């Protein structure tokens, strides 16, 4: 059996874990060990080739980035089985908006959902820290829409030729937009390249312009600041039945040996994301904690949250050139910062160039196959003009029974039940859904009309698949009966156990969540350093 000793052990090596580790090693003298169930990731030097094969064939650039017997079931939209060094963020898109101040005061301002135990203003310095550590390129929108304490660390990615025209269209339609903040370098920094517009941010950036957690791990390991243990699955946290303190973590190697592993530490940080964090707490049930650790409230695995979207394509009387920078967009927070009204609706808004409807086609209008110059002539006709893609995430108030539980049949090689998820809207949210989606669709139609354009199509998220940018499962709060962890991420029931990032969030706002997950994690790291 292998034994590991450390002051602080972090379980999981994803983006929240990486940036927390970077913070901890700067702010404590305690040793830090990171336990990752998966393997090392595809190194940067191999990503150009990996990208080429993804582009040519659809191959994964992240070979064997998962464990075949370690997966989640149920409504898994928003979940990825990625389990390797860097986690899911090895193939994130790098889009890094902040939540808006309203997200932290939903009950107070709108009478729905729950307030967070702290404010946007309290999170602002940790947002800034996250942006600086990752290298976020952005421009502040109008101050009333986009409040922040300090400027972005890097200038924004440019509003390119296509986006400039779309920005003028949006302005004409009454919507303020600006360059979407992104964890992609607008100028070279720390040995990483400036963005090269490769347009494969998702799933792989070959230049290193997009932040991925392996950059942080490589530096921390190289400098001897953390110990990174891979291919080791933590299967249980063991609590002292009298004090509740976590005394060790136990698990196994995930390589062929399956060797047993024990990890002794004084501080345990669960940074394994919204699925695997509550899953481990539920797995760790014992005689003193029959419902799992940290679960006096019965809320471990509850209140899974996320958002859905309405997506549309507009035909506009502009001349765009699809492909200038497909993955970059304009963003607006205009509809996130709304006053209380009769019915609740908040959403973000993003605007992209699109080539929908402008592609070559196999047949003409009469159904005759198109070959050769006839195909090219037809394509040229179709290629003129402009298609804009517009999308709004709207937030979903989670139900208490939006849950992650242990699957009754699916087990891994060690016999541990796997997680199964069932996302559920709170009743008020479910009742609002049709109206909310129609309101957003009406906005899109209004925008198209303002731009003298037409709507090609409008689509809603498919029901019952799960939700996007998911959070929850270990929600934070001041009342131990209503929450799993306190406002700093410390478990109410276990003084030396901390849960970090996405699982602690009471809600998931209506925009991409990764930056907020990291900011929350950095806030937790600051508390661990002080503890």
């Amino acid at each position: 059996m292998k034994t590991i000793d450390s002051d602080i052990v972090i379980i999981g090596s994803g983006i929240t874990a990486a940036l927390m580790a970077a913070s901890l090693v700067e702010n404590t003298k305690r040793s830090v060990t990171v336990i990752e169930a998966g393997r090392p990731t595809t190194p940067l030097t191999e990503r150009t080739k990996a990208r080429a094969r993804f582009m040519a064939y659809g191959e994964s650039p992240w070979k064997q980035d998962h464990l075949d017997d370690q997966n989640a079931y149920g409504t898994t939209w928003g979940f990825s089985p990625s389990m390797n060094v860097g986690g899911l963020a090895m193939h994130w898109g790098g889009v890094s908006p902040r939540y808006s101040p309203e997200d932290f005061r939903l009950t107070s301002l709108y009478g729905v959902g729950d307030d967070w135990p702290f404010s946007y203003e309290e999170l602002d310095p940790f947002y800034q820290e996250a942006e600086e550590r990752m290298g976020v390129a952005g421009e502040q929108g109008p101050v009333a829409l986009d409040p922040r304490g300090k400027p972005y660390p890097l200038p924004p990615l440019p509003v390119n030729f296509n986006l400039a025209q779309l920005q003028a269209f949006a302005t004409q339609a009454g919507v303020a937009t600006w360059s979407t903040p992104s964890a992609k370098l607008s100028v070279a920094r720390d040995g990483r390249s400036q963005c090269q517009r490769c347009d494969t941010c998702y799933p792989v950036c070959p230049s290193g312009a997009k932040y991925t957690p392996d950059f942080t791990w490589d530096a921390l390991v190289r400098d001897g600041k953390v110990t990174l243990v891979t291919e080791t699955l933590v299967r249980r946290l063991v609590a002292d039945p009298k004090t509740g303190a976590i005394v060790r973590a136990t698990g196994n190697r995930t390589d062929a040996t399956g060797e047993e592993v024990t990890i002794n530490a004084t501080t345990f940080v669960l940074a394994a994301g919204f699925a695997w964090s509550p899953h481990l707490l539920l797995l760790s049930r014992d005689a003193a904690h029959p419902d799992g650790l940290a679960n006096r409230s019965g809320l471990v695995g509850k209140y899974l949250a996320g958002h859905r979207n309405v997506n549309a394509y507009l035909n506009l009387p502009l001349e765009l050139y699809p492909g200038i920078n497909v993955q970059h967009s304009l963003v607006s927070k205009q509809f996130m910062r709304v006053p209380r009204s009769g019915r609740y609706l908040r959403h973000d808004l993003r605007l992209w160039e699109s080539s929908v409807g402008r592609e070559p086609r196999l047949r003409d209008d009469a159904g005759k196959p198109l070959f050769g110059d006839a195909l090219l002539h037809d394509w040229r006709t179709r290629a003129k003009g402009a298609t804009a893609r517009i999308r709004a995430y709207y937030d979903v108030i989670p139900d208490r029974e939006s849950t992650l539980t242990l699957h009754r049949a699916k087990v891994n090689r060690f016999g541990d039940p796997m997680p199964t998820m069932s996302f559920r809207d709170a009743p008020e949210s479910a009742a609002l859904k049709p109206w909310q989606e129609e309101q957003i669709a009406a906005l899109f139609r209004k925008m198209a009309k303002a731009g003298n354009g037409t709507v090609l199509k409008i689509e809603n998220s498919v029901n019952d698949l799960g939700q996007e940018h998911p959070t929850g499962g270990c929600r934070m709060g001041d009342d131990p009966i209503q929450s799993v962890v306190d406002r700093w991420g410390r478990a109410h029931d276990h003084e030396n156990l901390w849960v970090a990032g996405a699982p602690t969030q009471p809600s998931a706002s209506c925009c991409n969540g990764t930056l907020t997950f990291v900011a929350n994690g950095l806030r937790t790291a600051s508390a661990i350093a002080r503890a």
Partner: protein
Amino acid sequence: MDDTPPPAGRRTFLKLASALAISTASGCRFETRVPAASGATGSDRRSDFDRTLLDAVGTAVLPAELGDVGVAAAVGAFVAWADGYDPVAEEMHGYGYSDIRYLPADPAPAWRAQLAALDLLARRALRAPFVQLSIDQRRVLIATVVTGAEGDRLPAPIDATHVALALLSHWASSPDAWDLALNAKVQTGTCRVLGDASTTPVPITGRRA
């Protein structure tokens, strides 16, 4: 996750990711064309197409505007792509589905057989080898064998039900083909200088893809 891809099946995903992938699904990010010839090799397989027959198909389905050199280059790029294909390699798994998926079996044997069948059909129907037919005659024959292809969208090359469509869609997915259609030097899907993004793309009138 930015802009989550849809809960796509493999065919849909490949359409998004490996060809002239234009997303139509909500939340999907893939709205890009991809390089026709990646230059990458997955294995040392050889597709072993009858190159004379494949060239003859190329002259029928690809634009004459490419010129002889352009058509030959497009056919060569397709062959290189087929040679580099790695059967049942792991597909990209993103957001929206949690199962691990794998690419299909090698399409080359079926495509080789289809080339041979085109020649047989030409000999039976028109009493001449396929390569000796006029361009229009070749197109008529090809049109008869691709009638089963669904919809009006070109399939991703790997999903093409006929080698003629695979070749055509492979070319159409290239940055140069898109530039030809747009009459502008955009070079979509190609790593490029960031600062150039703000300028109007340069017209390419007179150039050949």
